[in-house]
């Protein structure tokens, strides 16, 4: 699924740093994207592959705002992480269907190839990584929190940065069928001796399962994570309790809190 070959430009205006005078920048414009393909990832999630005219490029880890408009003008907005590498000409969003949601059921059940979708982005300048920032890279995902981390791994693969940046992904999901990008992750790890992908399933472990079978805990992190002395860049993304526990444990294990970047999902009562 990771397409490569098209060079992408990171066109974002240079970020000011905290403490500098506030910068005035151009607004992030709403754009009308077209759905060019839809990929079923799991029984409850699918990836929308979008052609976005005028897309300014993004960095792995950023997100977009999606806006839906009903025929009477009612609108709903939500944010979704970008799953695709900056090198991919299409913008990919993987959307988990929340049964009580307002927007995610539409994106999963109604939207189809050829439809248009209004969005703006890229958004977010902190939970981002690119090859130039170096490694090693430690990615810890819970559930659909894997999406922005997948963009980082796809970027790393597209840049052929395996030797420059060893990477480890620890990915917690409920059941095996809930794992996003399962085949692609297996393929990436198989082709790359400096990428280690470790799964843990929290709700149900199938026969013959070789990964972990519990929630991420201190022992698992001590085993899977780079030692703090390696000073990894750490990105943790998932549901709030998981992120709270993982980030606190990494700090206890000796990781520098300033190198542990987090993004927490919900509970948001439906998105």
């Amino acid at each position, binding site marked *: 699924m990771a397409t490569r070959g098209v060079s992408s430009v990171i066109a974002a205006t240079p970020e000011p740093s905290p403490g*500098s005078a506030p910068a005035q920048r151009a607004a992030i414009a709403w754009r009308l994207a077209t759905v060019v393909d839809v990929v079923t990832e799991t029984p409850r999630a699918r990836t929308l592959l979008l052609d976005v005219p005028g897309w300014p490029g993004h960095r792995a880890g950023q997100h977009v705002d999606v806006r839906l*408009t009903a025929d009477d003008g009612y609108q709903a907005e939500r944010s979704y992480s970008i799953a695709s590498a900056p090198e991919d000409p299409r913008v990919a969003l993987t959307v988990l269907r929340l049964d009580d949601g307002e927007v995610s059921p539409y994106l999963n059940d109604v939207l189809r190839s050829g*439809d248009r979708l*209004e969005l703006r982005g890229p958004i977010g300048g*902190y939970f981002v990584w690119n090859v130039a920032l170096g490694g090693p890279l430690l990615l810890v995902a819970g559930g659909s929190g894997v999406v922005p981390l997948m963009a980082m791994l796809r970027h790393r693969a597209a840049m052929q940065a395996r030797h420059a940046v060893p990477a480890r992904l620890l990915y917690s999901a409920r059941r095996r069928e809930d794992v996003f990008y399962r085949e692609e992750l297996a393929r990436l790890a198989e082709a790359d001796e400096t990428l280690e992908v470790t799964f843990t399933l929290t709700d149900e472990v199938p026969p013959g399962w070789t990964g972990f079978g519990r929630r991420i805990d201190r022992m698992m992190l001590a085993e899977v994570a780079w030692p703090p002395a390696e000073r990894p860049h750490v990105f943790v993304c998932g549901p709030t309790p998981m992120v709270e526990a993982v980030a606190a444990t990494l700090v206890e294990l000796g990781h520098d809190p300033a190198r542990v970047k987090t993004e927490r999902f919900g509970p*948001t009562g439906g998105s």
Partner: protein
Amino acid sequence: MTEPFISRGFRGRRQPGPTAARLPPGQYETPDFPVLSAGPTPRTPLANWDFMLRGADGPVARWTWDEFAVLPHESVTADIHCVTKWSKLDTMWEGVSVDALLAAAAARGVKPAPYVLAMSDGGYTTNLPLADVTGGKAWVAVKFGGAPLAPEHGGPARLLVPHLYFWKSAKWVRQLRFMEHDEAGFWESFGYHNYGDPWREQRYSGDP
């Protein structure tokens, strides 16, 4: 776009009128209290906690946790709006107004200045105009829903500025620094709006 775009087949889930009127554009109501922060949750023991107001020209007023506890506390009920689109209505807080802190700090020579930078444990910062933290608009909150504020929600104390997007309500706040000139805080330097009025949907830098 010359004509308004309609999302094919989208009906949406409208809120009842009274709720809808309290939701800024692009927001939806949640009964939960989501947590959003950029890094690990800092945990400062109360014995080591203090709170400071720093004037632009240097004077500092400082309170320990016990000293802070005897300042006049107020109860505040407010709707809060997170830039990530959720809003939570009628949240109940308890804390010390920035007005009361300034009044107490005046005796120690701390004078306000046109801008303020809230500074937190863990290195988080956010910037606000003075006018948005005075006149009964902002508090340093220590209780939520009648209970001590939980660490993941910013405890032991967070800034509460409910009329702006909630990233301005800095968690784990330890200091308000008054400044003659505006300085971008943390999210304000990572592409988020410098002011952040939810009713004008000022989410990102460049939004009107």
